[in-house]
């Protein structure tokens, strides 16, 4: 555990970058520091690996003041990833990754084997091992940056806006990769970002900082969304935090109906039998059960020419969140969301009203979290 204990940082020019910040960063989880630009996130992170010396307070790593250890040994036990990766341009990918192992005295072949192993772990083709950084895309460079930080298997990983310089699609890939790696390795990750969506996606715990380096709220992301501590946090979370909060509720309890689903080769009788009063449409699937689109049931049963209406997108039942289900219903021209199983076969549909009821139910079981405000304010 990393304990940041009443830490203050005042720069020589008088800027108070961090103001009596206290945080307990749990082991083997991702803790995100988030807040507007200039609120002291980078400064806080850099105090953990002693790139910046606090003006007051102390930082403990597993109960010991970090100043007790030789500074370079401390840094080698903490992977460090920065925004533009900071790869060494004169070294190949594999040499970059092997930096800390070589520093720790590993022999060349062991460092190299480790490097190749890490390239695979971060989703890099090992054919890139001999490339130089300028020959890589921004996303690939960031992956090398992460691999380099992980090379000596440090228990702690410090990441300063590592994904903010790449485009949104690449960023999503990198975020997913990080979550996958974290599930395998269980590092103590401190992750800095100014992007609240990234914070909510990645964080087990999220610390929201405000200008002047003061802590606004420290909570798991779901709690942040359901019970922001004050107006600042609420503003920072943005207008659609209610919708985003739905990402934390599963669809496993959602009531589906499989009635209005027919195969594309269904007979007139079958279509008629599957028509329900709540909607004039039935969902048509291919012969394997995958959804194709909605069609007007009565017209189809009467043998009139009908066309398939798009169903928007389906959600995977039990795996996707209520947010995905709601989105699916909102996007569907019929107002009904299509649920599929892991193989993509339609297993049922749900009306907007049903999803709304499930949302009310989910909120009811979570209960009021307003007590949190009192504790952290």
């Amino acid at each position, binding site marked *: 555990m990393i304990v940041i204990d009443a830490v203050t940082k005042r720069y020589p020019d008088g800027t108070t970058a961090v103001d009596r910040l206290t945080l307990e960063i749990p082991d083997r989880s991702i803790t995100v520091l988030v807040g507007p630009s200039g609120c002291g996130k980078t400064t806080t992170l850099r105090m953990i690996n002693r790139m910046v010396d606090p003006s007051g307070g102390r930082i403990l790593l597993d109960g010991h003041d970090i100043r007790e250890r030789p500074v370079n040994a401390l840094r080698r036990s903490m992977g460090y990833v920065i925004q*533009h990766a900071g790869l060494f*341009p*004169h070294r190949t990918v594999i040499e970059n990754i092997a930096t800390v192992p070589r*520093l720790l005295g590993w022999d060349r072949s062991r460092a190299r084997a480790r490097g190749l192993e890490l390239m695979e772990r971060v989703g890099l083709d090992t054919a890139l091992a001999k490339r*130089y950084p300028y020959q890589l895309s921004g996303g690939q460079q960031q992956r090398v940056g992460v691999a380099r930080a992980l090379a000596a298997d440090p228990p702690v990983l410090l990441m300063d806006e590592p994904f903010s310089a790449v485009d949104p699609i690449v960023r999503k890939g990198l975020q997913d990769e990080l979550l996958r790696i974290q599930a395998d390795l269980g590092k103590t990750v401190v992750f800095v970002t100014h992007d609240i969506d990234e914070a909510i996606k990645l964080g087990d715990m999220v610390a929201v900082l405000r200008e002047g380096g003061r802590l606004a709220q420290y909570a798991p992301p779901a709690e942040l969304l359901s019970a922001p501590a004050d107006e600042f946090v609420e503003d920072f979370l943005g207008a659609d935090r209610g919708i985003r909060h739905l990402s934390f509720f599963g669809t496993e309890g959602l009531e589906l109906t499989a009635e209005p689903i027919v195969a594309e080769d269904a007979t007139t009788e079958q279509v008629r039998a599957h028509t329900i009063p709540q909607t004039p449409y039935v969902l048509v699937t291919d012969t394997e059960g995958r959804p194709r689109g909605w069609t007007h049931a009565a017209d189809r049963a009467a043998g009139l020419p009908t066309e398939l209406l798009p169903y928007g997108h389906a959600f995977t039942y039990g795996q996707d969140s209520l947010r995905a289900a709601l989105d699916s219903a909102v996007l569907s021209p019929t107002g009904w969301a299509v649920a599929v199983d892991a193989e993509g076969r339609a297993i049922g549909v749900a009306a907007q009203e049903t999803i709304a009821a499930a949302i009310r139910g989910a909120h009811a079981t979570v209960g009021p979290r307003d007590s949190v405000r009192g504790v952290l304010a």
Partner: protein
Amino acid sequence: MNLFGYAQQFFDAPGRWSGADGIPQRLLEHVQYSAVALLIAMVIALPVGLLTGHTGRGGNALSVLATAARALPSFGLLVLLTILMGLGMTPVMVPLVALAVPPILVTTYEAIRAVDPALVDAARGMGLPRWRVLAQVELPVALPLILSGIRSGAIQIVSTATIAAYVSFGGLGRYIVDGLSQVDYAKVVGGAILVAALALATLGFFWALNKVLVSPGVRRR
């Protein structure tokens, strides 16, 4: 007679390619003086440039010193030192070294300062000690610029090493000095051509050195 005529006359002269006043011997002397002067200049300028660049301190003092050194007249210095110290290699070396130190020093300082701070930050953050940050990150990344500073110094030394001949040392300057005093223009032209050719060869040498020493990742090809 035109330039080509003089040149032809010079290079065709009997005994020109052998003996104590032959081209190989004079060329060797010239290269030796230049190499020694360049090495001394590097030994002085590189460590100072690397350290001031790494710490970022003393940059102003450095550029003042360098500007002052640039204003030193090499020939005047040679004459003065020879009067003071008598004939010898030192009065020859001092102006040559003084000529090469400023470009090497200033370029090295600036090359290290120009290294992306994010690289240095990443290196320190990974726990590299300072000397490794300098030797393994800043130096290799700044190397192309540093080499260009050494190259300017080398070219200036090669061109100026002709002055050694004025105080009765060898080198290609011998042809120019002797040619002038003997009113042998072919010799003057020949000597000048050889000095120019050696300067070009120096350029080529540094081009090759750049290929060998600078990482393809920094050269970007």
